[in-house]
């Protein structure tokens, strides 16, 4: 990392140095800059949501609750959930990495609708402003699920502002999804056939389908809650014969697939990481691609497993239970194919790969405990306990956030043109893994022993596990702060990365880092299959200095 290898200014014209000033960023239609705008926004919301997590874990240090009144505690976990789900997790990989990478990966100049893309960012932040207003003016106490009739009739908190915020932010998701689908259909470079697309693109295609089909339903549902509070229409009001359970059906029709909005892109990232750092062609490419779509489709048919104890018919519950088990098939296809890709690969454990491996392990735990919850009898026992909390944090934090950070590290050289400090990055990945498991594994046990979620106090015998969880959260917090520091540091002081530092096979690595504003000097023509390390002799040259050779095509 001598001064000679890291000059302060990158030579070529790229999307970062083509113009300067606030206006050139706020009015940009370049998908790469919009990706970075999203990165800035969601990082802010992530640390805000994280602050509420800190408050929750501090409060739960003692059995009677160490910090606040029960009402305030309700607001803590609600704001944590709303901000993390709607303003961090859902836009995280799609809006930052997807935005930045999809046009590069398919050899296009930009997304199909660049101005719509910028508009989505503004809409997203407008929605966030409404929600931040709800936070600043006293918070919301309904839980991120907004269950009626509590949210529509009884809650005295700022439900309307929060619901409107999510409603508005939803349109940003819809427009992003629409933009991705159209881009992937119409903007692919010559030779970039559907089955040459990186799995990252397939994953975003599947995610976009959920954006487009699911988000409008959430929008109308929360819209009706807001209308019910403001104009006293009563579609969910049991006093008028309205149906509060209808709200749960509509809500989960979106919010269960929303889990796949979070995890499918992370699976896409993981696929890239596993293939690149195994130097091997992806095992069963077609199955992995199809599994993305399979998860998206089946994911729409399982929402009722959130309502096993809400009084739905036992026959409906059985069908939803079976369908929920079916999701395990495409998920397992992915896990087995990743494992088979690793087998006999030349595996190197660089930071992104650590996240990739972490994703697989944590996703397996999160996924298998999901099957516990999909089983009717077991669910009655663990429903609304910390078991559920632990399960979905393994998927959302262990899965989606690990995937997001892995992707951020992997493509950071492309985004910034510079390498992050490898030692610090490995340390951060390790801290995150340890902190994460220490935070959430005890919650499985707590839940199984019967500690209900969303309670501000608990019996004294649960304290040891709760203290462990809080201790883990503080480690996790350090793990999240570290990358923020060294990634920003590396933007100025990191060594120059070159176009293809790993090396990897995707089109995004065929253009300089950071890419020029128009992405490619001339439209690339694709003549190779995805992840074809064996026959891409050009990569040896691109990876000079890293001294890792592609695997011999022996199998």
């Amino acid at each position, binding site marked *: 990392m001598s001064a000679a290898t890291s000059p302060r200014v990158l030579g070529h014209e790229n999307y970062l140095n083509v113009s300067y000033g606030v206006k050139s960023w706020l009015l940009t239609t370049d998908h790469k800059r919009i990706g970075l705008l999203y990165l800035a926004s969601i990082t802010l919301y992530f640390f805000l949501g994280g602050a509420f997590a800190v408050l929750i874990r501090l409060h739960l240090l003692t059995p009677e609750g160490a910090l606040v009144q029960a009402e305030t505690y309700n607001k803590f976990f609600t704001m944590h959930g709303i901000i993390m789900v709607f303003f961090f997790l859902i836009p995280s990989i799609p809006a930052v990495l997807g935005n930045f990478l999809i046009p590069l990966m398919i050899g*296009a*100049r*930009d997304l*199909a*609708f*660049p101005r719509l893309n910028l508009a989505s960012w503004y809409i997203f932040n407008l929605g966030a402003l409404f929600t931040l207003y709800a936070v600043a003016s006293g918070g919301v106490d309904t839980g991120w699920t907004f269950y009626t009739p509590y949210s529509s009739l009884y809650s005295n908190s700022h439900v309307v502002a929060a619901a409107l915020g999510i409603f508005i932010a939803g349109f940003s998701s*819809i427009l992003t999804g*629409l*933009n991705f*689908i*159209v*881009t992937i*259909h*119409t*903007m692919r470079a010559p030779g970039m056939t559907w089955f040459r697309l990186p799995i990252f693109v397939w994953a975003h295609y599947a995610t976009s389908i959920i954006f*487009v*089909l*699911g*988000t*409008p*339903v959430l*929008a*109308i*549902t929360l819209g*009706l809650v807001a*209308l019910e509070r403001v*104009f*006293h*229409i*009563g*579609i969910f*009001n049991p*006093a*008028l*014969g*309205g*149906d509060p359970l*209808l709200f749960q*059906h*509509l809500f989960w029709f979106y919010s269960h697939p929303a889990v796949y909005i979070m995890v499918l892109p992370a699976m896409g990232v993981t696929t890239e990481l596993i293939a690149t750092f195994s130097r091997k062609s992806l095992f069963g490419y077609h199955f992995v691609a199809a599994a993305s779509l399979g998860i998206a489709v089946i994911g729409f048919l399982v929402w009722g497993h959130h309502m096993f104890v809400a009084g739905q018919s036992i026959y409906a519950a059985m069908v939803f239970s079976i369908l929920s088990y079916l999701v395990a098939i495409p998920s397992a296809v992915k896990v087995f194919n990743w494992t088979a890709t690793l087998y006999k690969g030349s595996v190197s454990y660089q930071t992104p790969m650590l996240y990739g491996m972490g994703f697989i392990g944590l996703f397996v735990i999160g996924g298998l405990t999901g099957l516990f919850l999909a089983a009717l009898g077991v669910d009655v026992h663990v429903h609304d306990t910390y078991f559920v909390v632990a399960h979905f944090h393994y998927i959302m934090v262990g899965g989606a956030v690990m995937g997001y950070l892995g992707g951020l590290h992997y493509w950071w050289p492309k985004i910034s043109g510079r390498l992050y400090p490898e030692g610090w990055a490995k340390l951060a990945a390790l801290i995150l893994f340890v902190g994460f498991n220490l935070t959430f594994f005890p919650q499985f046990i707590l839940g199984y022993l019967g500690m209900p979620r969303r309670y501000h106090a608990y019996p004294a015998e649960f304290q040891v596990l709760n203290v462990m969880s809080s201790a883990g959260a503080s480690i996790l917090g350090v793990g999240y702060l570290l990358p923020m520091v060294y990634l920003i540091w590396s933007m100025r002081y990191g060594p120059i990365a070159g176009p293809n530092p790993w090396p990897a096979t995707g089109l995004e690595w065929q253009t300089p880092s950071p890419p020029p504003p128009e992405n490619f000097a001339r*439209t690339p023509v694709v003549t190779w299959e995805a992840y074809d390390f064996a026959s891409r002799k050009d990569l040896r040259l691109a990876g000079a200095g890293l001294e890792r050779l592609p695997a011999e095509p022996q199998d």
Partner: protein
Amino acid sequence: MPEGRSALVEHFRDLEQQREASSLGMWIFLVTEIMFFGGLFLAYTVGRSGYPAAFGEASRHLDVALGGINTGVLIVSSLTMALAVWASQTGKRKMLLGYLGLTLLLGLTFLTLKGVEYADKFHHHLVPGSAFSFPGAAARPAELFFSLYFAMTGLHALHMVIGVGVLAFLFRQARRGRYTAQYYTPVEMSGLYWHFVDIIWIFLFPLLYLIDRHR
């Protein structure tokens, strides 16, 4: 969507690719709209299957004549919109302006009549809330019916307002000669939107006004 001086936006290879993208984007947008209204249609289905008699009775308090006229207005406006798209494709600028203007007027007519209906409901205390009053035993499910009525027709009217705004924009652009036989995508896409909003009404009208008229 519509571009000023040159029709081709620089990140597309050619006009064909650009048209394909716009068209696919619009169709996907309409799918999201179907899901958006779908939530309401589901709520209606649940409500009506729970209280078929009360929904029928409440439905009789809607003005079927005004609703019927409005249905006619919208169907005619779909025809004029289709003709506007045809005029733009064949480069007939005067006709394009005429049909766009006619569609816009029909849209405004619909909204005016809808406003008359809303005012009438307000006078008869059929707007959900504390002032709601409904004769007979089925007052509560009737309030549910009117909740759905206002949510569904209100959301539809909001789409009409947006549609009228789009038409006004198209009209202005067409007067400046922005649309030619080579570049008419915005007119075509707006046409799809307008037809979609009409179709929603075609479902709303029988579900809200006609369910109990056979007796």
